[in-house]
């Protein structure tokens, strides 16, 4: 079991993760072949007004008032930090990069261990905040199911076990195995569960035509 989790399961998890995302990506483009300009770009003869740097910053700050920054600033900060660190912290962790170097002969830039540890703690605090919201805020509770708790656990478990392993709390080998197992489970489940919003956030907001798109996408379902 230990050999399987620490060996072939990692390769299987990465293959399922990459192929799963690729499959979902292809499905998205297949389903949105039809194009329709809901919000067409300006005609070439009409040139947009040239803005100075100050005007651009001012317009960005003004438009932020029309976003979630105004309605729920705390959650906006927490969710942004959580999602950035969810991807960033493991990628630049020294331990992961040593393993990467040992396996493939190359590695990414590594952050100091103390910093990585702090970032892990931040992820856990953000996870606790989400859990608290689910339990205590009426409007979130109204749409929460057991599945939401499981998804949150899948996302946070690799960080929790990693945090324990770094401090060598509990039985180290068991915690390490749980850490690897939970990481693999997360990778495998991303393309096929709610965690897939990681990919679909970008697809929806950049490619689909719509008022709230980041770019003026024209694809329609």
């Amino acid at each position, binding site marked *: 079991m230990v050999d399987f989790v620490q060996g072939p399961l990692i390769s299987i998890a990465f293959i399922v993760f990459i192929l799963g995302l690729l499959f979902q990506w292809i499905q998205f483009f297949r389903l949105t072949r039809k194009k329709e300009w809901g919000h067409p770009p300006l005609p070439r003869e009409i040139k947009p007004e040239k803005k100075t740097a100050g005007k651009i910053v001012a317009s960005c700050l003004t438009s932020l008032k029309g976003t979630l920054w105004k*309605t729920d600033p705390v959650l906006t900060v927490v969710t942004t930090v959580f999602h950035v660190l969810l991807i960033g912290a493991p990628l630049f962790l020294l331990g992961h990069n040593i393993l990467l170097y040992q396996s493939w002969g190359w590695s990414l830039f590594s952050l100091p261990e103390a910093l990585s540890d702090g970032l892990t703690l931040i992820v856990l605090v953000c996870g606790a905040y989400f859990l608290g919201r689910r339990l205590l805020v009426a*409007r*979130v*509770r109204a*749409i929460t199911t057991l599945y939401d708790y499981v998804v949150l656990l899948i996302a946070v478990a690799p960080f929790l076990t990693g945090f324990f392993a770094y401090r060598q709390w509990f039985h180290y080998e068991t915690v390490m195995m749980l850490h690897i197992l939970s990481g693999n489970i997360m990778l495998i489940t991303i393309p096929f569960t*709610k965690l897939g919003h990681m990919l679909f956030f970008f697809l*929806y907001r950049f490619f689909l035509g*719509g008022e709230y*798109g980041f770019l003026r996408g024209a694809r329609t379902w």
Partner: protein
Amino acid sequence: MDQAISNQDMKEVDAKKIKELLNRRKGKMKRFLSYCAHCSLCAESCFLYMKYKKDPRYMPSYKVIHSLGTLYRKRGKVDRKCLNEIKGIVWRNCVLCGRCYCPIGIHVPSMIAFARAVLRSQDIHPQHNEASSESWL
């Protein structure tokens, strides 16, 4: 008009037709439903939610989960009582103004509109004499 309502209540539900309709747009709708993070950040974008003292039943995500979500979860095998409950959600609790905002980019109005279409296929729709001060009509 009363006759129309009683016909709505009496008519048998054609589960096969509902399933066929649901399958027609399964690719998009099921993706929308499965990627909803249940974050509730869409709530404030609905004026009805704000108007009704932030009642969670008026949240765009709540309306979608309990209408189209129910239809997909039950694979179209629903009874008339369930369809009438959905009718209240998609017509009385939503005016399809299209102002709902989802941070992930899920298009809520298209899902409510589709749920309405499914209900119409079973002759379930609001009647004129159902209008009230807080009605959709």
